[in-house]
């Protein structure tokens, strides 16, 4: 467990406090130091062997204690449980005194030596991974309280009859650079002003179900740079995104394998790509892409949702705030990044025709890596 203090202003005030102490003036300690408690989670000599014991050991009121708790998973073994692997709830938090579940240095699929060539799907061998095996409940469940909890750099799968990540309606949680997968819908259920960035959500359920769903999105709700898919071997149905609200912005996001892009026409946003145009927001979006042309393997047997340079997803818009890099940390193209979670490094191909549904796929090729590997 590491305990650190942070923040430029707080650090400056701390330095001032030290200087004042030298001349005999006391400075209240709490004014200048937010504490960050970082704990290791894994099965080889870590602070905790399960995510749930880490969460249960976090104090109830992080704001009063002026503390942020960071749990860093280590890939000593796959984190599996019959019940919820990580259930967060009941803490008083805010935007900086919050709970962050992420990975230790070098432990994420984003850090793997072969991250650029590893198939983009759940694979516990390449990074910290959480998988629920039993029925009911989600793999990660974010309950009431503990708002602003962040789930980052993790792989999350539900092998039972539950979601990958499920959040309470009234609170905001943030999902960043995760691989999520479930056979129950939706893969991710969020509420309020939650954000999902650079994340793969794969629904392995035929003929029904949403990919990412929102309950009552609030202003600021965002999906950016995500890939939301149902593998092509399964029957398309429902919508990739379920949240018919102008509070939800969807941008630079790829949705494939569903009957509709979104469940209604009220979402805002732009530069989205899909094989279906129904309810796709934005005048620069393209709802006429051919599924089979966009990814290394869109099938349900060995899926691999790395974008193809020869596909038509290279028509996104730069977003330095939310998606300066992609799901594995590749810097996005400064002028025309890829739509979806994956950026083809140096990719020059793609560039499908915009909003011309009769011209399927658009121009292809021109890049270095070309087609499927």
């Amino acid at each position: 467990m590491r305990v650190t203090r942070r923040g430029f202003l707080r650090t400056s005030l701390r330095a001032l406090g030290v200087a004042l102490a030298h001349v005999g003036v006391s400075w209240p300690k709490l004014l200048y130091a937010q504490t960050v408690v970082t704990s290791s989670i894994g099965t080889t000599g870590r602070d905790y062997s399960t995510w749930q014991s880490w969460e249960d050991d976090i104090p109830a009121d992080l704001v009063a204690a002026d503390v942020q708790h960071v749990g860093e998973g280590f890939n000593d073994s796959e984190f599996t449980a019959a019940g919820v692997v990580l259930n967060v709830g009941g803490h008083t938090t805010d935007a900086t005194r919050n709970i962050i579940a992420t990975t230790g240095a070098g432990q994420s699929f984003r850090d793997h030596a072969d991250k650029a060539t590893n198939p983009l799907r759940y694979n516990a061998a390449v990074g910290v991974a959480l998988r629920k095996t039993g029925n009911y409940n989600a793999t990660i469940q974010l309950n009431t309280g503990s708002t602003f909890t962040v789930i980052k750099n993790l792989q999350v799968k539900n092998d039972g009859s539950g979601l990958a990540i499920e959040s309470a309606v009234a609170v905001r949680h943030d999902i960043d650079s995760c691989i999520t997968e479930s056979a129950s819908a939706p893969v991710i259920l969020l509420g309020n002003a939650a954000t999902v960035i650079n994340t793969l959500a794969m629904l392995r359920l035929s003929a029904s179900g949403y990919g990412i769903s929102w309950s009552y999105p609030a202003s600021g709700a965002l999906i950016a740079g995500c890939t939301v898919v149902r593998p092509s071997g399964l029957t398309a149905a429902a919508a990739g995104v379920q949240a018919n609200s102008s509070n939800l912005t969807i941008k630079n996001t790829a949705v494939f394998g569903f009957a509709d892009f979104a469940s209604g026409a009220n979402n805002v946003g732009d530069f989205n790509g899909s094989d279906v145009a129904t309810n796709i927001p934005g005048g620069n979006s393209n709802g006429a892409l051919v599924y089979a042309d966009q990814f290394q393997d869109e099938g349900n047997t060995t899926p691999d949702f790395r974008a193809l340079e020869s596909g038509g997803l290279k028509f996104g818009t730069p977003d330095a705030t939310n998606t300066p890099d992609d799901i594995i940390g590749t810097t996005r193209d400064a002028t025309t990044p890829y739509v979806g979670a994956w950026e083809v490094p140096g990719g020059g191909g793609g560039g499908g025709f915009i909003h011309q549904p009769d011209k399927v796929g658009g121009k292809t090729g021109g890049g270095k890596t070309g087609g499927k590997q």
Partner: protein
Amino acid sequence: MWELLVRKVDKRHLTDPVNDRQLLKRGDVVAIKPGGHPWSKRERTNPEWEIIRVSGASLEALEHLLLGDPPDLCLPAEEARRRVVSLVFEDLKPEMTLTQIRSAEVVRPKRHRGVVEL
């Protein structure tokens, strides 16, 4: 053989009753792991936790001890239970059988607008 990490004392939120209801309480199971699981030193020595070994049980027979009410639209936050089934801590011993665990189980009450439903 399975090992249960069980809360020995209530985890409390002293100023927020809704949040307090979301925290694990005495007798709630924190985690279930196979016998011989490499619990960390902190998990083995934390005075708020106890590790109980259960023999003669399948995982399926124990996993309901980890179930809570899902955070969905059907159940207001103040009514959701973090664990539906808990254990009477006073009835627990370091080594138990499934039958003994069953006899120590208690269903947590569900609260409806201030009324406790048993």
